[in-house]
Structures are given as structure tokens and as C-alpha cells.
């Protein structure tokens, strides 16, 4: 249930996420060492267009990547087929996109 397009999308989003995840982990390590608080996190991120772009692109990528991944898993283990499978993929990716967007906005907007 994975044509070349979805395959490419999954791989490309993975490639996009790769540096972003590394960056995120770096920040986390740094943050954890400093002892973490809401205020500290927010003070760093809020109002920064760069962080918005950083986490925003991660959210876009991961919502596609994970939705495709789940699509495959659901198809192979639960036997769900098209068109239900397409709807599922869409719903999952929109849901992740929505939740992710909310989170990103929460931490980057003032």
C-alpha cells in the first residue's frame, strides 16, 4: 500500500527530521543540564521566528512521516484497505499536524 510517492515522502521527511531531531536533542541536553522550567524554555523560544520555523518544519515532516508509517503498519497488521486506509492516513497526519501546530505555537508565540 505504498507507491513510490508515499515512499519518497516518508524518506524525504525522515531526512528533514534528521537534523531537526539532532538539534532538538542537543537543546534538550543543554536544557536538562541547566535544570528545566517552563519559564526557561519559553524564554528561549517565545517570539523567535527561527524556533517557529525549526519546530514548525519538524511538525509538518513528522505528521507526514508518522502518518505514512502508521498507514503501513495498520495495513499490514489489521488489513485495512483503501479507501479507508487513505482516510486514516489523512486523519492521522492532520491530527498530528494540528496538535503539533498547537504545541509549536504555544512555545513560540508570545
Amino acid at each position, binding site marked *: *500500500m*505504498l*507507491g*513510490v510517492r*508515499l*515512499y*519518497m515522502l516518508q524518506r524525504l521527511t525522515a531526512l528533514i527530521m534528521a537534523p531537526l531531531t539532532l538539534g532538538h536533542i542537543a537543546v534538550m541536553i543543554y536544557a536538562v543540564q541547566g535544570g528545566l522550567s517552563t519559564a526557561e524554555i519559553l524564554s528561549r523560544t517565545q517570539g523567535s521566528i527561527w524556533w517557529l520555523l525549526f519546530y514548525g518544519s519538524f511538525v509538518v515532516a513528522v505528521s507526514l512521516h508518522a502518518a505514512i508509517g502508521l498507514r*503501513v503498519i495498520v*495495513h*499490514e*497488521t489489521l*488489513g485495512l484497505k*483503501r479507501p479507508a486506509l487513505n482516510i486514516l492516513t489523512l486523519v492521522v497526519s492532520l491530527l498530528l499536524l494540528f496538535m503539533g501546530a498547537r504545541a509549536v505555537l504555544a512555545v513560540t508565540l508570545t
Partner: protein
Amino acid sequence: MSANCDELEVSVWRGDRLSGHFEVFHVPAQDSQTILDVVSWIQQNLDATLSYRYACRVGMCGSCAMMVNGVPRWTCRTHVKKVMNGNKLEVAPLRNLPVIKDLATDMDPFFDKWIAAEGLHHPTKTRDEPIETINPDSTMRAEANAGIECINCSVCYSACDTVAGNVDYLGPAALQRAWTLFNDAKDSGQNAILEAVSGAGGCHNCHSQGSCTVFCPNELNPMKAIAELKKATTKSFFKKRV
């Protein structure tokens, strides 16, 4: 005949498309004995209705494959001693194919997918023209040769969990054949092949589980062939878009 009088305890799957169960038989152990010998012995001496399939008995035709102790194998060339578990054996029909009866499966889906993957020659010449001169050492030819000795036994097909979960997935053998043809200088089907392996059941569904390569009795490497197809389709994906 030098028989040692030990006995094998053989569980054999009995049933049809819909249902079945294991049945236990006791078979005299012999010095040189293959799984196929054991199965035939049961049919010829204990239960006349046991169904299974074989033809060449030397690993060339690929019609005798079964699940032996949970693993797909060619039975005519699997020595009992190699797989025996104590004195126990379990023999079942190949996984991932519909069962016709007992140990015989319907291999049509496997071959339908072989053709669906464009696993057939696309001629560039006729019988009235001379045979093409082809350098046997060229990289393309080496690539084509790597998978050419496939006996379409379906062992890889039944080892693969992606096949189990995804009814449309063309499977390792068909995709390997497509890759072989893709590298055949005489074949004009490159585009058709790329198209065929890029669809909903194509090479992109493979998760590189590698069971195909582990179990292929001819030591072929379908996993690699599939990875190469992914590479080729990726290339053509970007070429088309720029």
C-alpha cells in the same frame, strides 16, 4: 539398505483452504533421507490420501517447498538430519499461499505477481536477427546474472512477513526477476518495469526484513535486488520531476 531402526515422529498438516490440523505419523529413519522422502513414505505406506507436490527431486523445479519445523525449505534437498529436532519433524504447507490440500499450495498468486512485476522478456529483436553480442563481464550483466538462477520455488515469498500482511505486495522473487530484466541489455522493458514496481504493491513496500535472502535455497539475494530497484525508481522519480 543400511537403516538404523530409529523412528521419526512427524507432524503433518492435514486440511484444505478453510481448516486443518496436525496429524502425527511415525516413520522409520534412514541414513540418506530427505523431507520429501519422509512425506512420500507417509503417503505410500500410512495414509494414501496425503497430498503434496514435487517433480524434479533435485532442486531444479521449485515445486516441493514446504514449511519444515516452521521454516520454508525445498524438501527434496533438505536432509532430515539437518533439520531434525530430537526425533521430531513438523511439516506444513508453504506460508502465504492458499492451501489446496494438505501440503500442496496454490502457487498461482505467486506467478500472477511475477507477471504483474513485468517479470517477462520484452524483446528488442526477432528470431531472424543474429544473437546479441554481450560482454559477460559488464556490470549490468553481472547484476542480471546474480538473480538469474531463481527456480521460482516461493520459499522467499513465504518467508516474508510483508507478503503475509500486504496482499498486493509483489514479493521478493517477482521483484528480483524485475531487477534482473532491468539489467538485461536485450530487454526493452525498463520503463514498464519501473512502472510495475512503483505501484501500490511494488518494491517500496519491502521493509528489508531480509528473510528472503536468509532462506533462498539457491543463495540468491532478493533483498539486494529490491534495494537496487528502490534506487532505480528513486532516480527516475527525480529525473521525471526536473
